[in-house]
């Protein structure tokens, strides 16, 4: 706009619109920032986190578990100081949710009158897995939840003991213990199956 030209009604209207847009932008900026950041995280990490949920045994609920983790992240976005730690936070939520799911399924199984079969994998996943892999995955699922989770974080995500401890909210010593016990038990199950 030419600064020397007198302002017309159209200019005033334009200014008013700009002002309204600026006001609107100022009003929605925190939510928009949060939504943009969460959308970017979703875009980048959703597939990996979905795989993590499946490996941890979330089965058909994996999508819901991951969506719930992102919802929790969105709700607590303002309270998260280090935004780079968001992925670690998401992993932690997924671990807790899958653990809660196991607990829930255990209760359901205990109270079920009939012998209801709860499958962890979809039929498609079952068909796609090689026999060798299927044995290992079945053996892994017989381990206690903590040992199962430590082994997945260590051997699939290649996280260090410190990162696993931070994600699971336990000490590094506990991580070592779960890993060694889990691995020993897995070896014995696999050897027993082969013998």
């Amino acid at each position, binding site marked *: 706009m030419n600064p020397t030209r007198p302002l017309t009604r159209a200019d005033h209207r334009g200014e008013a619109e700009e002002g309204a847009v600026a006001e609107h932008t100022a009003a929605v900026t925190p939510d928009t920032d949060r939504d943009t950041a969460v959308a970017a995280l979703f*875009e980048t990490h959703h597939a990996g986190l979905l795989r993590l949920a499946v490996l941890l045994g979330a089965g058909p609920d*994996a999508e819901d578990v991951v969506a719930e983790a*992102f919802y929790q992240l969105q709700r607590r976005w303002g309270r998260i100081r280090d935004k780079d730690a968001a992925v670690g936070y998401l992993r932690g939520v997924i671990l807790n949710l899958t653990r809660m799911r196991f607990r829930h399924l255990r209760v359901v199984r205990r109270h079920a009158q009939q012998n209801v079969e709860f499958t962890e994998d979809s039929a498609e996943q079952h068909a*796609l*897995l090689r026999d060798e*892999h299927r044995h290992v995955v079945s053996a*892994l699922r017989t381990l206690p939840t903590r040992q199962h989770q430590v082994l997945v974080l260590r051997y699939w995500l290649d996280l260090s003991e410190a990162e696993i401890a931070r994600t699971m909210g336990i000490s590094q010593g506990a991580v070592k213990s779960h890993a060694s016990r889990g*691995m*020993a038990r897995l070896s014995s199950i696999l050897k027993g199956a082969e013998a």
Partner: protein
Amino acid sequence: MNGGTEERLRSALAGLADTVQESPDAYQRARRQWRRRDLRRRALTVAIVLVMVVIACGVGIWALSGASPARHVIFNGDRQDSAQDRSIYPPGSP
């Protein structure tokens, strides 16, 4: 001893991870779900606040309806015989 098991575990985990397919509209579905939950949470909060206000009003009305119209506890002063005065001259009377 565990070297072989570690390799087998890595391979099995990678194999299982490869079978996982991400749905293309995952974000849109998740957003819809989050909005629904937000709305439900807000509606629940509003309902709880309304219930509390209604209960408070009910208790207040019940307390006022049970009070004697002859007793006036406001502007009763510090006089010993104020109770009798109040019953004779309620506030607002000339």
